[in-house]
């Protein structure tokens, strides 16, 4: 079921009708060209954009205007891209990043110290 607000009592109907295909975690989705990746995924009910580097807990967009970096994903192989300020294009390959390789105990002590 789409979560798009196709008709709005004040703003009217959505004019953009130019759907493109993109890949998110190996699955093909459609979105409106140039809308944000976060919006395109949300329209399919997808809220989890990545898993925390350390704890592995799921994360989604928070501020939606580029400040908080909670929505970072990999786009065409480049990591750390903010889904909320990245317009989708035909054929884009998007991936969630998961937990990083755990550090060994000694490194971790250094990091926390």
């Amino acid at each position, binding site marked *: 079921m789409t979560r798009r*607000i196709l008709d709005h009592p004040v703003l009217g109907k959505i004019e953009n009708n130019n759907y493109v295909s993109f890949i998110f975690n190996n699955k093909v989705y459609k979105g409106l060209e140039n809308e*944000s990746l976060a919006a395109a995924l949300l329209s399919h009910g997808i809220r989890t954009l990545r898993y925390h580097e350390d704890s592995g807990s*799921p994360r*989604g967009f928070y*501020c939606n205007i580029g400040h908080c970096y909670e929505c970072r994903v990999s786009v065409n192989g480049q990591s750390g891209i903010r889904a909320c300020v990245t*317009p989708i294009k035909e054929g884009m390959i998007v991936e969630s990043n998961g937990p990083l390789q755990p550090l060994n105990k000694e490194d971790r002590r250094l990091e926390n110290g």
Partner: protein
Amino acid sequence: MDNAIIIGSGPAGLTAAVTCAENGIEVIVIDEYMLAGGRLLGQLYQEPNGSWWNGIKESTELYKKAVDLGVKFHLNTAVNNIEKSNSLWVIYTEKGEFCTSNLLLATGAAESPIPVPGWTLPGVMSVGAAQVMTNVHRVKPGERGVIIGVNVLSAAIAMELQLAGVEVACLTLPKMNPITEDAGHPRKVLNSLLHVSHMAPSPFVRYGSKLMKNEFMKKLGVTFYPKKGVKMWNIPIQLRKAVIEICGENEVEGVKIATISTEGEVVPGSEEYIQVDFVCIAGGLYPLAELAAVAGCPFYLIEELGGYVPLHNERMESSLEGLYVAGNITGIEGAKVAAAQGRTAGLSIAHRSGVKGLESSIRDSIEMTQQIRNSAHIQFHPEVEVGRKKVLKQWEAYQANKRREVI
């Protein structure tokens, strides 16, 4: 003729760009978002005369006007740093460097988060995020949500969500802790709400605001505040309830809400569970001023303006040669005030660039900003005028000090 660079394409930046271009100055506007308009894009509310203020329409018109006047836009371009080099401002972006003798920072505002247990779950978002999804991208943030934080912005956005067919179960306070002290305290929140009550269609709230002008009545107001809350646009506003936890396995599934005392303390055993699929956190806005800080502007903490603001005068000049500020970077106010400040900044830039005969226009524009402020429908802080005066006083003190140093 000189050129100007404007960082931020919200109401202040766009209006400044148009004003500069009308005075024959070459303008470049840089913004990290994919659309011009900034926070103006999401705005949607009914004016007292019944007409709708449509942020997308306003943004598009301003953007088109700027483009027609020859303004160049670099959207989707984040600025990483700015510095002064050989009397020019150098702007470092992820798409290369720019330089100019006149730089305007119109970076706007950001939202303060409120820490609540469970707030990292997907489906928890800032209230502004829900606004942008709903009004700009036209995607529902969820089917049914709760808004944590009762203030002008969250009340306005609750109405916008409802307009788009998204159910808002209620607006509540956050559970009080050292960080949420003001946002979690019923009486303090009620105090700030009295200033927006004229927007409310509910006679309870409207009538109440006249009754509650003194401290004693405010206290009574919270004590007698109906446990079920009062309704604004049919949405319950709960000043005596707080969200104590956001729940869900992999994303938001519900929230735990408890009754709180007039001092914000949770009443034991009053917890209940409400099913929702999204949660908005509304911690209020603060000026987004990092670039002014890296440039070396002096800063002052002015609560009435929403936080730390870079020193500036009424002509929108910072204390640094060739650096200007306009819009919410100078204090949290509405889009119309931001646009008026943008016009003043544009005129000041044109004046410095050698355009003759602008003195009276600059004075008029400053006067106009004041008028727009006084007639604003929504005031983010009731004492914004006091805050503005504080900045001007600091400016005078700073300039006097500088003159003494020269002597």
